């Protein structure tokens, strides 16, 4: 139920937006309006009587005063008001009643432990060299893919037939582009339609954004402006011309993976992506269960690690083992990925899935999270991820339940070709088994 105040703030926001250009400001205004109208959702009625009411207004102090609250708003203030029958009553017994106090200029909610930089968002620094940042959305990690890596036969022998190659950066929030590749050993392994932009957000990335995650959204907004209107890029531009072109492609429904955990940040990402024409995918999402309804409503999928259950950082305080089950129950599309992006023992992903089942996720949903769902998320569902006519014949025959840790792949086919289960690991085993 929207209240007068909620209406007012919406109206205010839309007039404000009309008077100004800039999607970032619009984004802030939308958030503010949404926040206000949500606050009215838990309105209450109460009658406080016989208080020493310090009104902090021209009426001064009312000794033996009463206050009537209706729908979360003060309806009446005076001495000897009548208590309505339907309202719960509190006898103040002469105690002082004041308005809620102003807390002063603070960083409440912006700085959890001031001595730990990833938990502090109140300060932002504009000093060089931090602000000679460069982002390269055009970076495309698949160009370095080596199908002759010793890890490929190992992955094959474990029944892993495709992967999402992911760029990482220690100097930029926006690392670049990744692509899904088939692990069948061919050179031209990129699967078309899967290209994804990767962005990291949150407290652990504060060092890349002048010290505040609020600046992370600010920088993303700057990059988007540069992509939309090249003339906007002046000295100290974030992007090169190739980068502007690359980023612009993602502003029309392009898939952007946000590596982010904290519940409040997830809500910001949902709003930001919607406003800027991006199709977001959440990676990590340790606290995603807290905002499952928002994720489901916005149709935002989550790639999580079901083993995350410790407060590894202040962004993951609410991590719990039934994250997958809760998300699934709320209708959120989920897939799995090891948080450490582990490549050498990628087969541990089956253990992630089995653990999710042990903590409440239905078995079929867990298998889907390793097959059809990631394929849908990364746009390759036409050829990967299910056993159906038309799909590439990447198949695995298991000696038992594929989600059980004691199970081993018996036979693997890639593109219909039976793969001999050979790898460097198995050859080392055989040499020392004798």
């Amino acid at each position: 139920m929207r209240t007068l105040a909620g209406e007012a703030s919406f109206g205010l926001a839309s007039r404000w937006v009309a008077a100004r250009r800039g999607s970032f400001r619009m984004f802030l205004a939308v958030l503010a309006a949404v926040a206000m109208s949500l606050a009215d959702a838990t309105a209450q009625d109460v009658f406080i009587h016989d208080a020493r009411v310090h009104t902090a207004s021209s009426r001064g102090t009312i000794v033996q005063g009463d206050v009537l609250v209706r729908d979360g708003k003060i309806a009446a203030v005076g001495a000897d008001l009548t208590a309505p029958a339907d309202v719960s009553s509190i006898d103040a017994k002469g105690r002082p009643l004041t308005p809620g106090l102003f807390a002063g200029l603070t960083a409440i909610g912006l700085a959890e432990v001031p001595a730990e930089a990833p938990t502090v968002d109140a300060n932002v620094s504009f000093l060089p060299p931090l602000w000679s940042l460069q982002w390269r959305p055009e970076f495309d990690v698949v160009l370095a893919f080596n199908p002759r890596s010793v890890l490929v036969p190992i992955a094959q022998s474990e029944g892993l037939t495709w992967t999402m190659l992911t760029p990482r950066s220690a100097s930029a929030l926006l690392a670049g582009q990744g692509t899904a590749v088939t692990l069948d050993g061919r050179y031209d392994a990129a699967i078309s339609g899967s290209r994804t932009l990767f962005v990291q957000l949150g407290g652990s990335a504060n060092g890349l954004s002048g010290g505040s995650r609020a600046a992370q959204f600010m920088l993303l907004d700057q990059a988007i402006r540069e992509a939309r209107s090249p003339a906007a890029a002046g000295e100290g531009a974030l992007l090169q011309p190739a980068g502007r072109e690359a980023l612009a492609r993602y502003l029309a429904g392009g898939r952007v993976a946000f590596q982010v955990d904290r519940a409040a940040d997830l809500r910001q990402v949902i709003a930001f992506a919607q406003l800027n024409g991006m199709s977001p995918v959440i990676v990590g999402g340790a606290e995603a269960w807290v905002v499952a309804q928002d994720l489901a409503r916005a149709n935002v999928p989550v790639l999580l690690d079901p083993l995350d259950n410790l407060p590894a950082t202040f962004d993951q305080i609410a991590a719990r083992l039934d994250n997958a089950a809760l998300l699934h129950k709320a209708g959120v599309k989920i897939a799995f990925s090891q948080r450490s992006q582990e490549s050498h023992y990628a087969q541990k992903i089956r253990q992630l899935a089995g653990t999710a089942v042990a903590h409440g996720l239905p078995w079929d949903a867990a298998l889907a999270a390793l097959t059809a769902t990631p394929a849908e998320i990364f746009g390759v569902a036409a050829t990967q991820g299910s056993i159906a006519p038309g799909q590439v014949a990447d198949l695995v025959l298991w000696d038992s339940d594929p989600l059980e840790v004691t199970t081993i792949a018996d036979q693997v086919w890639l593109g219909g070709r039976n793969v001999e289960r050979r790898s460097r690991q198995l050859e080392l085993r055989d040499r020392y088994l004798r």
Partner: protein
Amino acid sequence: MTCLVRIAVLLTALPTLACADSYSSTYQPASASPILIRAATVLTGAGARIDNGDVLILNGKIAAVGSNLIAPREARIIDAQGRWVTPGLIDVHSHLGVWASPDVSAAADGNEATAPVTPNVWVEHSIWPQDPGFEAALEGGVTTLQILPGSANLIGGRGVTIKNVPSVTYQGMKFPAAPHGLKMACGETPKRVYGEKGAAPSTRMGSVAGYREAFLGAQNYMRQWQKYQRELAAHQKKQANRSAGKRTSKDQDAEETQPPEPPERDLRFETLAGVLKGEIPVHIHCYRADEMATMLDLAGEFGFKVAAFHHGVEAYKIADQLAAKGVCGALWADHWGYKMESFDGIQENVALVDRPENGCAIVHSDSEESIQRLNQEAAKAMARGIKAGLRIPPERAIRWLTANAAKALAIADRTGTLEPGKMADVVIWNRDPFSVYALADQVFIDGALMFDRAHPPAEPRSDFLLGQPQREAAP
């Protein structure tokens, strides 16, 4: 003099230098009533499997293990039909409390990486008992764990064995009368940490020189104390003679009034002397087979025993030598490849180290995540060994998490198996523990129920989690 004879001389008549009562354990087991666990599949940890077995716990100890046991009238009976019972799991390699959750810079206390040889530091002085990782490990069935310094240093300091119990202080967790361990590290990590600073060691050969110089210093230290002991004994004898009225020369009288000055205590050499005396088991982070062989020779040079190689990614290449020398391998099921020294990792490592007669394979975690599911880690290793043609039934594999681990920590006489007289550190699992679907239903430490899945605690154990939203009701 041969190396062995030199060592024997040094070890004689040496006083206990480490004050064994400093920072001692204040752990008191919670009071425990009699318990009879009935009709379970029992894996004793000593190699036996008892189907439809009973475990009787009296006064916090295992009183009996068998079938159709009789319990005292006041005993709590736990019907464990369809469930499995094992000894409490033991993780020999953990950094809980010293690299805690949350991972904040203020609490990164695992490596005193300001000098490569730091046997003077004790990791227990870095432990934060409120690390939420402890209760998560308890829910995974872990009842005892060894906390170790990290692997930045050639000699990282003393490790400590603790019981996984709630405590405001680390002393309240210390396993009573368990020896300290010594953490050492070979390979890439120390030489990278110090080489990058332009300091020694920067090569593997520099690392070995570092260990040898440290132990030579310890031998010298022990000689000084032996000399002092001899002088003290002589002084005391003369004092006794004087008071018995025997005559001595005037000059001697003048000299002998003062007792000899003891040498200065040195915390570094005190620890290493404890190693040379066999009081402190040695745990060495080491990946490559050739480097493990070098460390075995180092141990031979100075006359100490290696309790276990940790990580030991190439331990399978020297499984026979390790078994012959009684050295354990504390290993992962499947971690490999992050560094060159782990490039030859295989998933059958644990099984191959377990294979020889007297082989001592251990599955460790070195991780706040996998300590919560050591049973699953062991299951993975078991399956790969069976696939390779080895025979590894559950009653054998459970030793990797219990008896073998207790042996490496020198506490095997008190815990690690379900045998009469041992501490009642026990886990009741909802099914065969070697499964991703297995959950610990009940976990006992010294016979006290510390975790009950059917009645989870109303509050988190860790003060840090209190009032945090982790356990708020799901929407």
